């Protein structure tokens, strides 16, 4: 009798659990019953020449190999800014593409109109998503970058590639100056840069420079990270351009300028010209510029060069990683799922390894490194930079960041070119940037 009671109870509990769990499971995966078959998708991107060819090869392989008959068409639609402007005019219309490259701040702007798919449920879908292992295979900084705290931590994109801010240096000249490795601390960096400004490189003539810094908001962010600060406070959800790290970094750079050891870049591409002709020892730029630096140096003063992290006060380097992700404008569940399947394919390790080599971006999957051994051997600077990806940190994914960037660039110009007081300038920058941010967030779709 007790045996039967136990059995009955067990059966009742099992039945109750099945009633609870099965519908809950079905509810937790809203994509389980969606059929992505035979969808034709449009992918807007900014890639041209070799990158577009490589992307076309990826798309073609996907079209031929996916079992659902999904067809993706890739279209170059101009620069990031061109695509952004086109998208702004098309948001909320059926004319939007199914997939679009977008920087985080651009995606945040689209989301002001509630126009993008939150990929969280797709990512975690038991049927279509990525396993926990696969998710952990992404570089953490890349993976986190498309989660938007200002939009209830919605995932509005996924990174298919990334670049990183690195310090380019002339290794031969460094050796002539008596250093066998790039400077790791700001103090050493200053000493070397100032020495270089007085001691021309043997393969170059004319005036020389220790360091050239383009007035770019990403440079400001990178140096702030290197000094242990951040330009955004993720707790208060406000800019922190006046943080201690930012102030120390800008004061340090201002010191370099006033002592004649550094100069601002006066024209686009100016640093590349000076570096490649052996007149500039250090400059910081995106790792995606590695092939351009190689070509310029090979055509210029022909010296040994490499990349390194920015000198830092933190125990380990803090590297500014950036790059556009891919976002999905809202359409139908079938199209959205089909688009997700392409994203899942695009970010798989094998595809990432090939895409990284062809486009000279970094793959977003750590396991892709195993497939890049040959490439690493022939591209030592790429390998050096790749090894720094673990230290990545990103700039804030907030709407209107472009406007804050423009303000930051003017603040940098005021500090470096006009010698304005660092604290006052950054305080004003922070105030203005936060006013702009508040205006951006004034009426979110979710708050109405």
């Amino acid at each position, binding site marked *: 009798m007790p045996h039967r009671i136990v059995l009955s109870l067990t059966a009742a509990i099992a039945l109750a659990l099945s009633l609870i769990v099965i519908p809950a499971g079905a509810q937790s995966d809203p994509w389980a019953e969606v059929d992505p078959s035979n969808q034709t998708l449009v992918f807007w991107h900014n890639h041209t020449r070799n990158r577009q060819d490589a992307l076309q090869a990826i798309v073609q392989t996907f079209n031929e190999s996916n079992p659902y008959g999904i067809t993706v068409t890739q279209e170059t639609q101009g620069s990031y800014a061109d695509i*952004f402007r086109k998208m702004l005019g098309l948001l909320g219309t059926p004319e939007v593409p199914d997939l679009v490259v977008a920087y985080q701040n651009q995606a945040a702007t689209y989301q002001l109109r509630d126009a993008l798919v939150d990929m969280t449920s797709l990512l975690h879908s038991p049927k279509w998503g990525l396993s926990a292992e696969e998710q952990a295979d992404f570089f953490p900084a890349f993976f986190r970058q498309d989660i938007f705290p200002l939009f209830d931590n919605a995932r509005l994109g996924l990174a298919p590639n990334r670049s990183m801010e690195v310090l380019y240096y002339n290794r031969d000249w460094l050796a002539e100056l008596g250093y066998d490795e790039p400077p790791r601390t700001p103090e050493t960096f200053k000493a070397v840069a100032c020495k270089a400004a007085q001691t021309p490189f043997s393969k170059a003539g004319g005036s020389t420079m220790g360091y050239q810094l383009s*007035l770019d908001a990403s440079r400001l962010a990178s140096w702030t990270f290197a000094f242990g600060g951040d330009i955004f406070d993720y707790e208060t959800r406000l800019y922190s351009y006046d943080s201690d790290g930012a102030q120390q970094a800008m004061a340090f750079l201002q010191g370099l300028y006033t002592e004649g050891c550094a100069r601002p870049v006066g024209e686009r591409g100016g640093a590349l010209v000076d570096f490649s002709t052996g007149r500039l020892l250090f400059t910081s730029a995106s790792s995606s510029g590695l092939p351009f630096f190689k070509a310029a140096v090979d055509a210029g003063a022909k010296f040994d060069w490499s990349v390194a992290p920015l000198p830092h006060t933190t125990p380990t380097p803090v590297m500014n990683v950036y790059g556009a992700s891919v976002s999905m404008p809202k359409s139908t569940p079938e199209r959205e799922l089909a688009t997700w399947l392409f994203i899942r394919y695009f970010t798989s390790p094998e595809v990432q390894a090939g895409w990284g080599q062809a486009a000279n971006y970094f793959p977003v999957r750590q396991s892709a490194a195993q497939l890049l051994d040959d490439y690493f051997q022939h591209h030592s600077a790429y390998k050096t930079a790749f090894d720094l990806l673990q230290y990545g940190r990103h700039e804030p994914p907030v709407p209107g960041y472009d406007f804050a960037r423009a303000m930051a660039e003017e603040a*940098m110009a005021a500090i470096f070119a006009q010698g304005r007081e660092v604290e006052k300038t950054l305080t004003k920058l922070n105030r203005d940037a936060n006013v702009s941010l508040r205006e951006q967030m*004034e*009426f979110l779709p979710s708050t109405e």
Partner: protein
Amino acid sequence: MPTRVLRLPEAIGRRLRRREAREHLIGYLFTAPAVAVIALFGLFPLGYAFYMSFYAWRVRQGPFRGLRNYGKALGEPQGILIFAGAVALLMLAVWVWRRARRAGAGRRLPGLLAAAALLVAAGAAAVTGWGRMLETGDVKFLNALPVTIYYALGSIPLQLAIALALACVLFQHLRGSAFFRMVFFLPYVMPTVATATVFRSIFSSRDTSMANQFLALLGLEPQQWLAESRPILEILFGWQLPDYWGGPSLALVSIILFGVWTFVGYNVVIFLAGLGSISGALYEAAELDGANRWDVFRHITFPLLSPVTFYLALIDFIGALKAFNHIFVMRSPLAQGTVNTASMVIFDTFYLANQYGYAAAQVVLLFLMILGVTYAQNRVFGRSVIYD
């Protein structure tokens, strides 16, 4: 019989009215396509911008804001009112000055003194009002207005003067004048982005840039050009004047030079057309009277070209207030916003800050400014134009 007499004119009148109505209808039908195009592509966008300017519009339409977008741009009403009062005083001063000039000798001096006093009061009110507007309004937008005026005043007189001189030379039918006419016109038809990129290289801050090489030839120090935010008077004479009194920045002067280079050719062509329409008999008569070349230019060519000069000044001024492409290509953060004309600031508000409602309010303000300046130009200079 009398009834028949009365009926005939009535019938004729009705027929005439019908014919008139039909003619009107046909006229309207003929103009309808043009009216539709103007309404659709001219008036509707303007009206829609006006509508947007009353809303918080950020990618999508937000709540109604009334005049707050305008308040954000111009600051609190007190400042705006004081500044508007200054404009009114200025207009009054001009009116009094004109009346005084026409008045008899006894009333001329008091009139001129009154005009001077009004002018001083207008200046004081303008400084006070503008100061308040800067305190409470959008500094970026407000600072863009004097930059725009500097750009217009710096480029238009220079390009008109050079164009007039070149047109007079080309009108002599010298050998190769057709070739030079084409050469002068080329900058106007070349893609602005391409030529602005070349100018950016010429006015680079590099020691090896063409502009600095030229200075080196003259034994002068290299300049930062497009990267220089200091005012021109400070660079030339070392005068450190407050606010806008130091003149445009060297960066803006470099851009002005580009503007002059681009538009001179167009002005030359229009001036040449104007020169061709002046009767040769007048020149012959002047020659018989013993007038020299300067006299001929001063008393015949220049006055009779005044409709053309007026037209070009008007068109150039509107163009200068709307200038965008080359400034966009040539601007640098190192110029510290000293080259940001109103169009640039509106672009940034629209595409960088995505504040469409506020950008629309700025557009309306710029439109009103263009309208006001054009009206003032018409009133002030329009009277000096000689049409016969």
